[in-house]
């Protein structure tokens, strides 16, 4: 029982707080524009057109920035094996 407890202690922090912190770290490394569009998308729930209106970008640009941001965030999470 005690060994099992030790395994849990050494495992990566998959708790909500731990993941959130790492995602925030990754987010802070994004270019400003990518960070903004992702935050507008996820926190505020805007669609691409609305984000385009807010940021002055075209819908296609918004989509590209969001895709790049997701890619970068995923690479950060997977690459350093912090979470996954």
């Amino acid at each position, binding site marked *: 029982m005690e060994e099992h407890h030790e395994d849990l202690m050494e495992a990566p922090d998959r708790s909500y707080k731990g993941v959130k912190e790492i995602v925030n770290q990754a987010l802070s490394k994004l270019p400003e524009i990518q960070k903004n569009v992702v935050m507008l998308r*996820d926190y505020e729930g805007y669609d691409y057109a609305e984000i385009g209106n807010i940021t002055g970008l075209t819908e296609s640009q918004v989509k590209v920035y969001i895709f790049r941001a997701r890619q970068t965030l*995923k690479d950060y999470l997977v690459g350093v094996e912090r979470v996954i």
Partner: protein
Amino acid sequence: MKIDRNNYEDFLIQKLEGQLSNEQNAELDLFLHNNSDIQSEWEAFELTRLIPDERLVYEHKELLKKNESVGIIPFYRTLMYATSIAASLLLVFFVSQKYFINQTQKNPSLVAVNNSIKNNKTENDTSEVKPLNNNLIVAENYSSKNQSSNGSENKSINNLQKTNSSLITNQITQVRISGDIQPMKPIVAGAVRTFPRVSYASFIWTKGLTVPHSPSRSVNEAGAWLQVASILGSEIIRLSGRGERLNKAPLELQFKNKPVQLNINNPYLRLNKFLSFKKKNSNNK
């Protein structure tokens, strides 16, 4: 497009963004099922979706809302920047224009030109400035109350003669050159520093005499030189700050028919040495 190991990331992101059709979703699920190693990547993508922390609540949310009674005028950022820049440029232009005009008008000076100034006199010996009757350069004494800008020649020459007493006593007198003047060209050449505006100038005077690097001492003085040159129809040569020759300055429009204000006692100007004019339709004809 068929999902494979080269393009699956695009589909994963589209799935995350809710961009896939039902068919594509089903195809992607099948692909993930058959490629279990990619399943972890999908889980990582899912974690990239930012989730707002609902525990954070701002208690004074109502204060953030704008009062609807106040008209809201959409004012886009780019428009605001453009307007700001335009306003700044206009302000700088008008202030500099005002400054230049004020500097020109404040100068306690005069110009009295005649065709008989002797070259062997010292620069500051203004007592030798005496107009002759055959001089067609009409000078008007602006210090008098009767400012007749288009008076007769004799009257104006009389004014100039009156002015001479002021010259001797160094009183402030303004004289305007007008009338039909045919200068001996080139009577004035100038090196005008052109940035940011006409700031100061060096001039080369008549009779082939070159006086390089004789900078005027103020904007006022440079402007006055340009006035003289333009009124007399003389050539003005603009030089860059490094002394390279630029185009011939189209400055006559700026200075034509405006009062000339120069200090005859200014050694840089050398009025009493180098100024010389010819009567139009007589000597130059």
